[in-house]
Structures are given as C-alpha cells and as structure tokens.
C-alpha cells in the first residue's frame, strides 16, 4: 500500500478536515487506523483505500459493502450517497402497497399456435394448453416508470423498468417488484406479457428492451418457461401458460401429480440472454405464490401456516448502487466478476420498517441478486448476545420434510427460504433482519460473518401491533409436511457439470450458444447429476430450470440441517468455494429446451449456461455434456 506522505491534493486535504467530522460522527482514530483510512503517523492513505474503508464504515446503509472500489478487477469506484434508513414502511400485499395481479379478459383470445399475425413473439405452440385449459387470464406490461425507493428527500424517484398490471391500454403504473401472483394448484392460468419498454438509446445507461420472463421454479412447459432465448421485442406480446400442476401428472401420478412436488414460493424475472443482469437490476422481477389444500394461506386449515396476506409476508431483497452523479441506480456494465450494491432494498424500498403483532408470521425471503449472497439473522440491538431463532420451513419453492429451528438462513442469488418467526411475548421489542455475511466483491462471500449488530440491517421489525389471535400451528409441533419423494429409483443417466472460469465463464469447458443443445434427457426418466464448482474465488448458485432436485450429498456428506439447512428439494445448488453437490432429478411430463446456469446473473450473461432438452426420442447418457 502506497502511503501519501507529502503532497496532499486539495481534495485529500478536505478529507483530512473531514476527519474531525468523522470522529464527531463516532468513528474513532483507532477505527480509522484499523480500517486503513489513516496511517499511524496520522496521514491518510491514498484515495483507493480511503473510499474502500469509507464504504466499510458507512453503517447507515452498508457495513458489509460492496465496492472493492477500483482496487481489484474492474470494479468502478461508485459509492451511493447516504440514505436515511428505516423511513418507509415495507410494501406488503396485506395493505395493498404490494399489488396483487388481477385477471382480465384478453383480446385477441389466446391460441395454441403462436398468434404471429397479432404480434405474438412466441414461436412454439403450447404443448399443454388443451390438457390444462387456463381458467384465469392475466395481462402484464413491461415498461419504464419512475418510483420512489425511499422517503429520504435527497434521493430522487428512480427511473426503473417494471411490470404494470394489465394491458398497455390500461396504462397502469409499473411495480417493482412486479405484481404478486397469488395462484392455486390445479387452476391453470395464462399470462400475456407485453413488451412496451422504451426504445434502444433510452435505457438511462443500461438495459436491453428485449425480454423473456422466466417463472423461476415452475413446472412449466418449455415454451412458457421464459427461456433466455425466447425473447421478444418492443411492441410484441408473449403468452405464457402456467398449468400449476404437480410434477408427475402425466407420468408417475397420472391425473393428480405428486403432491410431494408441491412448490409454494416462486418468482419471475427477465431472463434475456446476455442482458439478464442489467434487466433484472433495472426492476424486472416479481414473486409468484402457489397455494394448495395443505398450504392454504388460511391458518385454520391444512398445515395451519400463518394466514396470507395478513401474517404471510413475502420479502424481495436486493442491493443497488445509487450513482451520485445522476441520483439514479448505477450498473457496472463492464464488470465480469459480479456486481454488488451498497444500498439494500426490501420490496423496492431502502431498509424499510414492518410493524407486526406479537404472534407467529411467515416470511418468504427471496434474493434477486444480481450477485450478493446473504445470511439473515434476527437481531435485537438491545441484546446482541441473544440467539433469536426461527423456524425454516422451506428451501427454494419446496417445503422441507418438517420445520427446522435455526439461528440464520443463507440465501444466494435466486434462492428462497420461507421461515416462521414467533413474536409472541415480544411486544414492545424491535428486531432487525440483519445480513451478517461478509462479501466485498462480486465473486462471492469470503466465508466470514460479522458479529451481531455489525452487519447490514435490512429490515426493521417493530412488535407494536395489537394483540391478535394466532391460530397458526407452532412449528415445533409440526412433525411432517409432505415428506420427500424417494431418491432410490433407478437412474437412466449420471452426468457431471463443472462450473469454471477459464478466462471466460464456462460449464464443462464449453461455451453457451442458444442453439447448442448439449444433452438430451428422456421424458419421464430419472438422472443423477454432480454439480461442481472448480473455483475457489467464485461462488456459483447453479440453477436448473423445470425440475426440483433433491440433494443427495454436499462434498461427500449428507446434507445438513444445522447450522444451515442444506437438506431438501431445491432448484438452486449453492456452489460455494470448491463445492460438489450430488443431486437427484425426475424429468417428467413435458418436453422441450431448458437451461442450467449460474444465477450470479453476471456470470450467466457471460455464458455460464448450457442448454439441454427433454425428449421422447434421441435421449443420450453423455456423462459430461
């Protein structure tokens, strides 16, 4: 580290003056020394470290920052201005501040074959439309709009891309996150997705107005999956048919599907090949909940999980940088490692506040990236040594075999975790959802945790609501949800996928191309995959479309349930440093093309992806496709 000894620029002199202000603000000289902000002789170190250290100290908004700030890789040194936290209420579906999608009549009526003449961008006929005729129809319009992300008056409304409910003609405002889908198993739906984004050249610096919306976790026919290569352009629409059926319906469990395949917490996001990171960062993501006769949304029935929407609160986490030069969100276009933000949003607001009653709540946590991993703890600042446990009931979209009591949950990009938090007896207290996972660049977390209270407080939870009935089941008394399907049925193929960096992002030494189908899986067959991270530096949340896998082992060990829950059915294998996951799949019911890819969306956009296809003839057993 070069020290700045004699020639101080005016700017650096200003920083020296600011030292007094920093000290007044509560940062001690010792802190400055420790952070490398100042040398032992009282001089400031050169700018690189100044800003980096600054970003690390700025706990009003980011402790575990974000920026390696010009010191490593290609990261630009763009640091958000301070934003006052905990000013805004968390938008929720319980009070309508997070809008729920509502059905409409579609004109022209949806067709099985692509309605090219009417401007549909779809090129493949619906394969299951006749078998599962849609009972509800939705319109959703992707367009630009300005939204407030905070009541801090120094931060202007943000120019985002979002999803508006209904048709373009309805001209509804955009939502970021997108409107919430509240759906039920065995009620098939059709969503008409309209692209009305502004033309090229009007993207505010990043984003491509060409889109494809992926329903992440859906047991969805390929043509409705939102495949990265099925993008459509401005002025076009695309009909997506979601059967909302359990896997197995056309195979192992004809007519009903296997309820053990039930998914409950899904999400949707733009998946445009090469531009997913930019477009999702710009706002094109939302959530999709699926209920059934067990997970009913009514705590008086089924598994007696807290009722939706009053006590069942979905939470979308992401991080952004606000460009101080424009006051608008900034995307580091040329970074290949992964992009971190230094400001944290939950349901579209910077570090919001949630008021709860002293009872049980279900929180559904989703990390939409682009590149940060989180480890969520519940922190009580007045008692930092307390172990505030909660119950994890799911991994990704799937309920676990039973609830597990945990102190924290780790959520990499695109992973979901549903938890039950019990605020009974906590009236008058305040808790924070705190991310304590240390991560300083887009590669992945370093592995360390901040001490309680030293991480980033993302959401403030105040237990000041009225005392109300709690008819939900105590998770300690829930001994079983659906149970897991067996993993012992014979497999037709065993394949290995190595996620690697060879100067570019690759899987199995090969490079993605839309038309390159790397392997073919026989419909209604079982396979065992080994998914490996060759790298030490980079972590890769490996996502496989269409089918939930069951984790058989991680690094040779049976998946744990403590301290982190690794057991269960998932659609993302969170590959941390050098990890090897062995997973078991059943590929059932539908045919067509799907990807496996890294969900650090910056890696995904630069080819860490492979296409495969479910087929009836021509399936292979290529062990390393």
């Amino acid at each position: 580290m070069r020290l700045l000894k004699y020639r101080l620029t005016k700017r650096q002199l200003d920083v020296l003056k600011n030292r007094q202000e920093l000290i007044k603000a509560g940062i001690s000289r010792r802190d400055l020394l420790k952070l490398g902000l100042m040398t032992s002789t009282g001089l400031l170190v050169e700018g690189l470290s100044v800003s980096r250290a600054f970003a690390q100290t700025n706990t009003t908004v980011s402790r575990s920052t974000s920026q390696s700030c010009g010191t490593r890789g290609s990261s630009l040194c763009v640091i958000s201005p301070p934003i006052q936290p905990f000013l805004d209420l968390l938008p929720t579906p319980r009070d309508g501040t997070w809008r729920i999608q509502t059905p409409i009549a579609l004109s022209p009526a949806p067709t099985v074959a692509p309605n090219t003449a009417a401007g549909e961008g779809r090129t493949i006929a619906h394969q299951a439309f006749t078998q599962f005729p849609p009972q509800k129809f939705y319109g959703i319009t992707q367009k630009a709009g300005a939204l407030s992300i905070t009541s801090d008056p120094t931060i202007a409304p943000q120019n985002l891309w979002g999803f508006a409910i209904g048709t373009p003609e309805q001209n509804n405002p955009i939502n970021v996150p997108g409107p919430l889908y509240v759906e039920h198993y065995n009620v098939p739906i059709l969503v008409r997705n309209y692209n009305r984004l502004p033309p090229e050249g009007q993207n505010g610096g990043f984003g491509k107005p060409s889109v494809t919306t992926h329903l992440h976790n859906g047991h969805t026919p390929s043509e409705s999956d939102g495949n990265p290569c099925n993008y459509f352009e401005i002025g076009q629409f695309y009909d997506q048919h979601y059967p909302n059926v359990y896997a197995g319906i056309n195979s192992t469990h004809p007519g009903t599907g296997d309820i053990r395949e039930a998914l409950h917490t899904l999400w949707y996001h733009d998946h445009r090949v090469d531009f997913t990171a930019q477009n999702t960062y710009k706002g094109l993501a939302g959530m999709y909940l699926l209920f059934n006769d067990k997970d009913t949304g009514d705590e008086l029935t089924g598994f007696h999980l807290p009722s939706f929407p009053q006590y069942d609160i979905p939470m979308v986490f992401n991080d952004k940088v606000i460009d101080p030069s424009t006051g608008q969100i900034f995307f580091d276009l040329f970074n290949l490692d992964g992009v971190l933000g230094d400001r944290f949003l939950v349901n579209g607001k910077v570090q919001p506040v949630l008021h709860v009653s002293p009872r049980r709540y279900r929180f559904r946590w989703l990390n939409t990236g682009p590149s940060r991993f989180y480890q969520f703890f519940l922190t009580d600042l007045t008692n930092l040594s307390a172990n505030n446990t909660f119950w994890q009931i799911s991994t990704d979209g799937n309920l676990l075999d039973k609830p597990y009591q945990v102190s924290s949950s780790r959520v990499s990009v695109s992973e979901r975790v549903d938890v039950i938090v019990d605020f009974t007896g906590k009236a008058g207290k305040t808790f924070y959802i705190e991310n304590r996972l240390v991560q300083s660049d887009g590669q992945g977390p370093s592995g360390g945790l901040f001490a309680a209270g030293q991480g980033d407080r993302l959401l403030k939870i105040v237990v000041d609501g009225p005392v109300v009935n709690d008819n939900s089941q105590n998770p300690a008394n829930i001994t079983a949800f659906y149970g897991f399907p067996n993993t012992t049925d014979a497999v037709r193929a065993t394949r290995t996928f190595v996620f690697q960096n060879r100067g570019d992002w690759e899987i199995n030494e090969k490079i993605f191309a839309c038309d390159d189908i790397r392997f073919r899986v026989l419909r209604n067959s079982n396979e065992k995959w080994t998914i490996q991270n060759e790298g030490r530096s980079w972590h890769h949340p490996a996502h496989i479309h269409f089918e939930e896998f069951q984790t058989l082992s991680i690094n040779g060990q049976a998946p744990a349930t403590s301290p982190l829950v690794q057991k269960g059915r998932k659609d993302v294998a969170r590959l941390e440093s050098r990890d090897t996951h062995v997973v078991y799949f059943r590929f059932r019911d539908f045919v067509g093309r799907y990807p496996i890819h890294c969900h650090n969306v910056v890696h995904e956009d630069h080819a860490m992806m492979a296409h495969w296809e479910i087929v009836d003839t021509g399936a292979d057993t290529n062990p390393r496709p």
Partner: protein
Amino acid sequence: MIKISRRAWLGMAGAAAAAGVVGLPPLQREGRAAPLPPRELIRLRNFPNVVLTTHEGEQVRFYDDLIKGKFVTINMMYSTCKATCPLTTANLVRVQKLLADRVGRDLFMYSITLDPKQDTPEVLNAYAKTFGVGKGWKFLTGKPEDIERLRRRLGFAWANQEMDKNKDFHTGNLRYGNEPLMLWGAVPGMAEPEWVSECILFADWPQNLQKDRQLIAQAKSRRASAAERAAPMTPMTRDHEHH
C-alpha cells in the same frame, strides 16, 4: 449506528477520484452543475481517450476515433500468446466474414494488445496479415500504462489477483456494444462464430433487427448444410490453474 454527513461523504468520494480511481466525473466532484447524461458518464468511466496506434501505423484516440457514435467489438490479445489468442483471432475472422458487409461500414472491430512492449504496430500488422484479417478491424497498441488503464476500465480484469496477473485470463471475452445506444454486452470469443455474430448484433441499431435475424438464420442454415463444417472446432488446451 455510525452516521457520516453528506459533506464528509462528498469529501471522501472526491478523494478517491482525485487519487485516480474511476469515480465521480469532475463536474460532480466539484458539486456543481446538472447531472451528466448516462452516456457521458459511461464515457468518463469506461472509455479513457488515450492515444493508440493501429497495426497500420495510424494514431487514434480511443474514445474520439474508435468508440464515439459507433457500434463496435473489443477484445484483448497479444501476438506471442499460445493458447486462446490464435484460436480466438481465427474465430473472429470467421465472425468478420459472417458479418461481411457490416464490418468497416457501420461495425468496427478492435483488438487491443496486452503486451504493448512486444506488440509494435509492425508486429500487429504481420499478425493481422497472418490471420487474413479484413477491413474494419484494427489491432491496437499504445503506452503500457494506457493499455493497463483501458484493460481495467473495459473490464478485461478479474477480482482474483492471481488470475488478474495472468494475461491469458484476459483474452477470453469479446465485448460488443453500441456507444450512443448504451448497450454493452460480452460473449466468449471462442463461442461458435454464428453465436458470436448473433450476440454482436444484439447491440445493432434497432432498424436492422429484421435484417439481422435473416443474416443469422442464413448463417445457421449454411452451417447446418455445409459438410466441410462437420469437423468440430479443435478443443483448446489451456493449462490455466483454476481458482
């Protein structure tokens, strides 16, 4: 909770910029004037206007002459590179042929050397000739410190320090972009040439959308029907350590 005032924050962010970190543009550093348009910010942050020399001996400014107003591709290479570079260059020659009438007319290809000391304009000229590089594709060299600045600002860089020191890890990706449209992406330069071409055209002027689709469809069908294309591309041997 520690709070830092806006003044302190401005001072510190400014210090970072003063120390040569890619940070705030000068106007904002001084805390005056209206926000700069995003295109201008991308220029300030990502496209230093350094003087480079082409393989044909021409002096050019990186932003003014090569990027401003243009639809381009950018990759990095060096002439003595044994692994990825020759294969990538050969692949990009195929791409150049696929995009035939565009390159040099309204699409420009740039290959910047990672070894400016060795790669003089003469060396790069010989290299370009060896590979049969056509018009509209410039190989560029310059002062080592300017090249290093370009490398980092264009993101031919990794956070992993050990890898970042190895030139071979900077030759894998091809940037494509359209400066006025603020559309920037990247694709591995060793991907199938039809796919590389398709990706490049993601940043094309929107009025060319239909033509581009036809071009790619034709390229794919030619490939599918061409018997001589049956031999797959030689798998690369790259002895990189993995990180």
